[in-house]
């Protein structure tokens, strides 16, 4: 420090730069931090790897055709995933469209129609905060509102509506980002030709932002697939030996079934649970790959 200021007052830049260098120290620091960050990465990757290996070794033996065709059973070797698998698919088929329509609609309104004022700021802040609300709270809401008040019972539709509320904030926020990424010049070009807001949205904004919106929605859905707490709250069953017939049917889903199996004392059930986890992971992987594929295929071309 001292030396530097001396050099400074005495004059030329060359002298300043030829002052005793602090480069070795800076390099050392650089190495130190690189090591710290790399360790963090390796640690988390290692944990993940251990987890996956453990689950696969434990569960791979139980994966067979029966796993998909049998209902839950008291006998581990006969226990299957049929009900929860179909339940989860139903759940996604209902939650997807509901949350997509509500979420994208909200995002479009907020981004393209609403005038920024105190009211819209309030809505915006609330949506962002909702994304951080624990999922049990959504379960409680679903229980009071859908199951009891609207007398939907412990049905698929009650579950799907609860799930939709849960992932709605994520969909709204990610859709808003996708909409905001559409260049203002394109919108202006459309408005400058006498287009209405809706025409501009439909012909310019949506075509450019649909990939981003879909990606966000799929990622949000893949969060919903693994959620257990809210569905336990609204009373999804843990043991059923029938398939849902309508949206008013009772149901169970994969994570609930898995949770139920891991809670049994018998070691064999833990193996079936691990098999269930593998199936669930594969489903998640497929959904996320679709999201990535969409994102890459429609990489912004403007």
């Amino acid at each position, binding site marked *: 420090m001292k030396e530097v200021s001396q050099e400074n007052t005495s004059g030329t830049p060359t002298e300043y730069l030829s002052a005793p260098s602090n480069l070795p120290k800076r390099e050392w620091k650089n190495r130190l931090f690189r090591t710290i960050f790399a360790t963090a990465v390796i640690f988390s990757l290692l944990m993940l790897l251990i987890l996956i290996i453990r689950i696969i070794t434990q569960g791979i033996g139980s994966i067979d055709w029966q796993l998909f065709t049998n209902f839950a059973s008291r006998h581990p070797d006969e226990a299957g995933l049929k009900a929860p698998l179909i339940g989860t698919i139903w759940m996604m088929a209902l939650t997807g469209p509901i949350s997509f329509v509500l979420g994208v609609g909200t995002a479009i309104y907020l981004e393209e129609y609403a*005038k*920024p004022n105190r009211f819209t700021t309030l809505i915006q802040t609330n949506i962002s905060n909702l994304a951080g609300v624990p999922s049990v709270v959504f379960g409680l809401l679903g229980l009071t509102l859908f199951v009891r008040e609207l007398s939907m019972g412990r049905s698929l539709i009650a579950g799907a509506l609860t799930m939709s509320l849960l992932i709605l904030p994520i969909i709204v926020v990610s859709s808003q980002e996708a909409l905001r990424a559409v*260049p203002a*010049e*394109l919108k*202006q*070009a*459309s*408005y*400058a*030709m*006498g*287009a*209405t807001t809706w*025409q501009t949205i439909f*012909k*310019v904004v949506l*075509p*450019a932002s649909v990939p981003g919106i879909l990606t966000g929605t799929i990622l949000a859905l893949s969060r919903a697939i693994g959620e257990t707490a809210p569905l336990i709250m609204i009373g999804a069953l843990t043991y059923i030996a029938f398939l849902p017939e309508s949206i008013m049917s009772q149901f169970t889903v994969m994570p609930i079934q898995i949770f139920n199996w891991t809670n049994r004392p018998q070691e064999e059930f833990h193996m079936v649970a691990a098999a269930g986890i593998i199936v669930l992971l594969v489903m998640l992987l497929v959904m996320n790959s679709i999201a990535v594929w969409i994102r890459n295929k429609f990489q912004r*071309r*403007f």
Partner: protein
Amino acid sequence: MLASQEKNTEYEDNTTIETKKTGNSVYKVDQLNLWYGEDQALKNIELDIPEQEVTAIIGPSGCGKSTFIKTLNRLTEMIPSVKTSGGIYYRNQDIFDKKYKVELLRTKVGMVFQQPNPFPKSIYENIVYGPKIHGIKDKKVLDEIVENSLKGAALWEEVKDDLKRNAFGLSGGQQQRLCIARCLAIEPDVLLMDEPTSALDPISTLKIEELVQELKKNYSIIIVTHNMQQAGRISDNTAFFLNGEVVEYDQTDKIFSSPDDKRTEDYISGRFG
């Protein structure tokens, strides 16, 4: 009705018959003020813009040229913080009137932006965008509009073999002419151009300048430019803006040879800005 040939003749008829009473001006700007939040960007603007002439707007960066030209088709109101006072009359109608349909104004007043901004669609789709939003569906009519507009923008020869090509594959100068063609497709009455050549090379610039000369036979053109020579070459009238005010507005020859205001003279001779 939308083929530009027909419209031109109809338009010429109109000028001889009817619009004399407006003193031949397309726009009459009356005491226009505009604020971005607290900052006033336009101050007491008074301008009469004559029809079928080229009116250039010059002035140093940040003096409000873009703001002014975007107010003429009410694009500035897309920015929430903007407030305006005063009046703008387009063909004798107050465009700020509550009952005035801004969509109709923008059909009559086309705009070309500083950066070429074609849609990420084919050349054909870019041109028919405007006609389609105004309800034209007939393929034959659309084809005709595409051809006429591209010819009008001096781009037809270069692209006629492949109209399905993505507009992003065109050069910058071609993209800008495509944007002009896209405007012509809705058969406007006025063309607003905000520094249409500032992103282009000299040859493309020349092409656009020639095009402006050609277009002024049928359209009233208001063009913002940073380029003094360009204003001198292509415009009939020039308005010199400074800090949100119109310092001087006169025939281009007059402004460039013997301006009344010292500041205009300084700016034109390159002493500031």
